[in-house]
């Protein structure tokens, strides 16, 4: 099977090791990966702020990049949802782009969704002997429905002690530009998230969307809290090495 990596700008520039972990896992499953270099960003910051013209111009890079891809896999649910939910509408008025957008919306997958739904892999043979809790990212949860995929993947990791997070579904307060446009509310939200995480006494917080994880990690680190924040691909990849 062939698939293209949609790395997303945040993973590309802040968390390239998450991309590498994703590549190792997918290649072990026999997926032939490519990385179309035309891609930049899905345009979410502008899209969510109302600047659709700007978002459209940037989004065109993805249409070009994945024109010939069979599958597209990304380590971030919200970027996938931006394509699925908004691209067809964002490119309305440009018939050719809109067609490409609809096509892309039909073949783009969040990483854990791709593993479970497309590759039909639920057990990677990983071992991860730590106490882990899970933050369910809003877009991944509500618009793609990744929670069952994440749960089955985690449940098959040997020696992993899973602790449920109170209000796991509550938004962490990132919300794209919300975090900087309404920083005070955003802080209150991430603070409640962090309080709930600390209450679990988990060593690791795992999630499926790097922007949420960046926000939560940033708050945890500011408070000098000793919780490791990991993307699901990272956790599985580390678990497969042991």
């Amino acid at each position, binding site marked *: 099977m062939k698939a293209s990596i949609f790395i997303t700008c945040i993973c590309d520039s*802040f968390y*390239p090791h998450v991309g590498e972990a994703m590549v190792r896992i997918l290649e072990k499953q026999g997926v032939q990966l490519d*990385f179309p270099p035309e891609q930049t960003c899905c345009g979410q910051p502008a899209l969510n702020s109302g600047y659709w013209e700007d978002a459209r111009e940037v989004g065109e*890079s993805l249409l070009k990049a994945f024109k010939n891809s069979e599958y597209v896999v990304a380590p971030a649910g919200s970027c996938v949802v931006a394509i699925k939910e908004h691209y067809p509408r964002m490119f309305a008025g440009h018939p050719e782009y809109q067609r490409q957008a609809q096509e892309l919306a039909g073949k783009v997958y969040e990483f854990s969704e791709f593993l479970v739904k497309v590759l039909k892999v639920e057990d990677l043979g990983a071992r991860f002997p730590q106490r882990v809790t899970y933050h369910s990212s809003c877009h991944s949860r*509500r618009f793609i429905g990744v929670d069952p995929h994440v749960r089955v993947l985690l449940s098959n990791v040997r020696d992993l002690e899973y602790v449920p997070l109170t209000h796991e579904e509550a938004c962490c307060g990132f*919300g794209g530009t919300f975090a900087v446009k309404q920083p005070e509310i955003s802080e209150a939200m991430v603070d409640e998230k962090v309080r709930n995480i600390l209450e679990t006494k988990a060593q690791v917080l795992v999630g499926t969307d790097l922007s949420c994880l*960046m926000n939560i990690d*940033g708050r945890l680190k500011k408070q000098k809290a000793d919780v490791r924040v990991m993307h699901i691909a990272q956790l599985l990849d580390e678990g497969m090495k042991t």
Partner: protein
Amino acid sequence: MSNRPSMHFRDRAVKALKDDQMRQAVRKAVDRLSSNKDKAAQELPNWEEWREQAYRIRKHTVENLDYYLSKLTENVRKAGGQVHFAQTAEDARTIISGLCEHYEAKQVVKSKSMVTEEIHLNPALEKVGIKVMETDLAEYILQLAGETPSHIIVPAIHKNRQQIAELFSKVAGEEIKSDTPSLTAFARKILRSSFMTADVGITGCNFAIAETGSVTLVTNEGNGRLTTSLPKVVITVMGMERMVPTFEDLEAVLSVLPRNATGQKLTSYISVLNGPRRDAETDGCEKFHLVIVDNGRSHILADEEYRQALHCIRCGACFNVCPVYRQIGGHAYGSVYGGPIGSVITPLLENDLAFWGELPYASTLCGACGGVCPVKIPLHDLLLKLRQRRIDAGHTHVFEKFAFGMWRRFFKMPSTYKFAMKAASIGQKPLVTNGYIQAQLPLLANWTNSRYLPAAADRTFRDIWEKRKNSR
């Protein structure tokens, strides 16, 4: 609709965030309401089908609103009532205070009604010398406190019982204890006597029924029933869209409304009024007036993108699940209707994207609101569209517009994107400690005041991929 607050949304939110008592009361209440709602929905094996049915009824009603409004009018008149149309809030106030003066009313009792909040009815009545008494317990509390509702279903959600006991004690002139029986016993004593002496009862309207000309009130305290049966004159005020076509349609909307709102299968009282007392009847009001308020709704109706916002049955569930409402409560929105639905309808009702266009940004677009809506209004999507419309209409900050313009220039092509990332990775170097930018920096302050910012990687994924490809 509303009196504009003087501060901007962000400043109002900052003020609210400092009110720990309010935030605690709100958190506690919304957690209870949401978990009750989940239980009630699970009890109904086909919850999603009920939602679908309620959605269809509301969609059909709103799409044929002119037809059903004329039916409703016809049938209210047939039942002996009178119908008045108010295009604006001012029209509505004039009609209602005119009616009160006509009936020489000195005292009015009111049951809970958001639309009368919307048209700012109470001050208008008081201005012409009429004493207004709110009879919904929470509304009564707010009337004493001189405050407005901070939630459409639980208006005094921001108050705890100690605060309520203090308010009641002031009225009583003696100490009223803060336990529920003491508080309700006191309110009952005061409210009962006002029902006996009121000349006019004013109610809101959960659902009018077009085919029968009836008005349905959903209450828990029985005050709705007293308001409509003791005074000689009853005036019901309804938002123009608050209607279902047939009596049978009530089943679906009344199945989802209390469950979604408070987790109740049924509220304690569901009252259906069919006009004034007929000749052979022993009770009921002598005169019935229905005031149908537009106040910007036609404007929403005409707009295909946002028409769905009129499907709302005011259950308040979107408030209860909203992570922003949870932190700031309802008053910070500054509008009569807060929460996600208020952030959608306020700029539309006001037809003002410049000032009220701030409200659609009072959301992380997490989607919890749309997910819980009993009539499937895609609230998160409407919030997003309003942002788009606001920017398209030119209501933008110079700095923000410039920033997105720069972002577009660098991010639209891989070459310039790579350049920008490289520049960031090199430029940040003096600021990075242990992989994070920790200091609070002027340009990044809104992030770094509360969070560390991860340092951009020395080598991006695309660099790594490129190198790997070349080494193969």
